[in-house]
């Protein structure tokens, strides 16, 4: 694409920086033997916030034989501009059409981006279905957490990588280079890819085991990340301190599919933080993991990193702290930094229901943590809850309002000279979506009418609660998310129909098209409800049975039964619970 063509396109869109490229640390090699384009099926500012694809970008570009570029979902104005000009969707670096790459990889982080995949393929000049692609077309690969149930998108992909990508992507690149050098056919190339551990070939289904990086220190981390020319959602240095979580919240897919817990060493993290701040110029570092408070080196890391960063006017953010891991002393250390909002996730309003979901947090834990935060000068608190969890009653829901009221009182009890001014409690209530490979994979989502009834109940209850704002998630999107997360291959047809009917960016409320989806389901004689509300028996076959994520089916069934009995399962570091079954010792240090 020429500069003139690009200018013509960019003159027609609201946020041209999304498509302009030219960022600091962008790969400028231009070409190599193997061309890979990493695609993110959402807009630039969200895609560039995804750590995983940025690590893969650097790993691939570090190879002499490989070029890796990026493409993002075009916003609707750009899609229109591309269709009207007949220009193809292009990579940001060299502005090549997607069809000009050997390998096109998509990161799938949530189901509601699936229609954007189809849009990107079509605009990029690649046939939507793997079966329609010929020898000249790229191999289309999927990765990311959604691949633990690849069936609803299976026909659109030639290959699917399940699990950690750092080691697998190198093997994939090796296989692709060899295939191109030796002139292998498409079918032969796919057979070669299928031999790589963690790769699933949808046209030749077989049981596949999730890929796990055993030692994070042995694989590359970010060295020189791209610094976007526009503000993005997570606009800071991301430092992954740990992968995996051993808490075992029963609804949480990430908690199961990223096991085992693997930590990075404190000195390595301090060194990485400095290196990344130096080469990006960012003024904020964020410590990432599913539960940063569980990182064993946290009390060594925190004071060190805060001191060294403060001297350079760099602030440190700590998302994902568990309520019970928060200590008054951590707050004291953070006293000197910006008071960004604190987030707590009790997830359920009563102890009974928190026991069902294995969220080992008590009301006392939460109120103490909130009280400590208020005393350290915070005045903004976000509380995350879920609605429609298995066994939930109206009493559990009303518990959300009750707990929020107690948080408000805690603020009032905090001496005014300690607490910050202007209390803001935001209560965010999402609708429970049953996810594959969790203890709740057998549980139905509540009906649309029931979602609305419970939301009304909540809003009514919150009229009595002072100082809090209640936000609930849209029910049609939750229903669709539930259908696709536990969907089978038949949903691929629905997906394509909905895409043809104009569905795009389905997680963006203002873009969500109910009619497109209703028609698409009706056309195939299916309903979203039959998937979302399904309650299979423990021994029924499930569409994702062939994906082995290491956590065993038996363990999940046991957790499901313990949930219904309200029995807690301990933190895995306090004693192995046997989630990997016979593979515990081979894959997890805790079990050794």
């Amino acid at each position: 694409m020429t500069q003139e063509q690009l200018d013509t396109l960019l003159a027609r869109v609201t946020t041209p920086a999304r498509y302009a490229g030219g960022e600091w640390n962008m790969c400028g090699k231009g070409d190599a033997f193997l061309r890979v384009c990493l695609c993110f099926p959402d807009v630039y500012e969200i895609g560039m916030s995804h750590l995983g694809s940025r690590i893969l970008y650097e790993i691939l570009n570090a190879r002499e034989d490989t070029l890796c570029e990026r493409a993002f979902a075009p916003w609707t104005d750009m899609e229109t501009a591309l269709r009207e000009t007949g220009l193809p969707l292009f990579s940001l670096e060299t502005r090549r059409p997607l069809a000009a790459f050997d390998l096109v990889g998509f990161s799938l982080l949530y189901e509601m981006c699936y229609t954007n995949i189809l849009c990107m393929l079509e605009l990029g000049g690649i046939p939507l279905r793997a079966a329609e692609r010929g020898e000249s077309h790229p191999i289309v690969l999927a990765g990311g957490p959604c691949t633990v149930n690849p069936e609803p998108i299976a026909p659109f992909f030639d290959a699917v990588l399940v699990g950690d990508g750092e080691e697998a992507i190198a093997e994939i690149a090796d296989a692709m280079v060899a295939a191109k050098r030796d002139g292998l056919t498409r079918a032969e190339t796919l057979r070669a890819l299928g031999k790589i551990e963690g790769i699933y070939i949808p046209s030749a289904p077989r049981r596949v085991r999730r890929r796990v990086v055993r030692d994070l220190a042995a694989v590359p981390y970010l060295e020189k990340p791209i610094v976007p020319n526009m503000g993005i959602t997570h606009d800071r240095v991301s430092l992954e301190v740990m992968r995996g979580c051993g808490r075992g919240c029963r609804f949480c897919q990430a908690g199961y599919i990223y096991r085992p817990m693997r930590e990075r060493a404190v000195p390595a993290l301090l060194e990485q933080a400095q290196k990344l701040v130096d080469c990006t110029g960012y003024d904020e570092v964020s410590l990432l993991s599913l539960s940063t408070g569980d990182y064993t080196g946290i009390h060594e890391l925190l004071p060190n990193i805060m001191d060294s960063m403060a001297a350079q006017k760099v602030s440190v953010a700590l998302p994902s702290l568990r309520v019970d891991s928060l200590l008054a002393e951590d707050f004291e250390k953070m006293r000197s930094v910006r008071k960004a909002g604190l987030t707590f996730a009790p997830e359920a309003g009563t102890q009974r229901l928190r026991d069902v979901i294995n969220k080992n947090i008590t009301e006392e834990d939460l109120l103490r943590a909130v009280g400590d935060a208020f005393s350290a000068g915070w005045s903004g608190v976000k509380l995350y809850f879920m609605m429609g969890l298995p066994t939930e009653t109206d009493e559990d829901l009303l518990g959300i309002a009750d707990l929020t009221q107690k948080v408000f009182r805690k603020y009032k009890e905090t001496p005014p000279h300690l607490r910050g001014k202007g209390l803001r409690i935001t209560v965010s209530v999402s609708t429970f979506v049953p996810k594959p490979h969790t203890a709740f994979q057998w549980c139905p989502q509540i009906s649309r009418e029931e979602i609305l009834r419970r939301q009304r109940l909540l809003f009514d209850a919150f009229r009595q609660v002072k100082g809090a704002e209640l936000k609930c998630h849209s029910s049609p999107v939750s229903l669709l998310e539930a259908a696709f997360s536990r969907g089978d291959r038949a949903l691929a047809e629905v997906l394509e129909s909905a895409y043809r009917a104009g569905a795009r960016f389905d997680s963006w409320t203002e873009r969500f098209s109910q009619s497109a989806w209703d028609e698409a389901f009706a056309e195939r004689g299916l309903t979203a409800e039959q998937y979302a509300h399904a309650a299979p028996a423990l021994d029924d076959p499930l569409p994702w049975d062939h994906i082995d994520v290491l956590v065993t089916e038996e363990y999940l069934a046991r957790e499901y039964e313990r949930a219904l009995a309200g029995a807690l399962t301990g933190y895995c570091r306090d004693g192995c619970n046997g989630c990997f079954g016979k593979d515990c010792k081979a894959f997890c240090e805790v079990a050794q």
Partner: protein
Amino acid sequence: MKIFTAISKGQAAAYTSHLDFQRVLQQAARRAKLPLAYSQGFSPHPLFAFATALATGYSSDGEWVEMELIEDLSPKDFIKRLNAQLPPGLRAVQAMVAPLTAKSLASGMEAALYGIVLDCNASIAEDAVRAAFAGILADTEILHEKKGKGGLSMVNIRPQILELRLLAVSGSTVFLRAKGVLTAAGGLRPEFLVKTVLERLQVNGTARVHRERICFSRDSAVF
């Protein structure tokens, strides 16, 4: 000390919005380890002041910025260190130590020169352009609707047009240069001028706008 610097914005950086340009420049200055002075408070930020903003999509030969430093640095070193860290399309082209008595850059601005390339949807005769320009300059009032904080308002752009010259016409492409008022309080918006010219030529088209120079008053430090 304070440094006055001009940063050029080439086509590769033209789509960086003004807000993002500020961020990008701060990040580059941090990577360059310039001895930046910071504001006080919980979220300290480098003390930069931009003379004016440039609309997204426009390029420029020099956008002026004031940067407060806590150590002395020669303008030559400043330029060298900053340029080693600026992303494609951005370049520090000029720098000077601000005299202690210097007023802000914004307060010294008077006008700006723009080079504009119009791509029209029909071929254009040179005489038609000359006639259109003469017509524009002969007018006393050319009104455009402006979206501001208080909603829509009408602005007369004619007094803001100081010079309007045709450089060349080639097929459906018109090359022109305009000098417009530009002060701290505002000035000519090139997109209004473009709209006026296209209207007078009775064609549709797109424009590429390049700010060639910001003109400062005679008593300004960067004149």
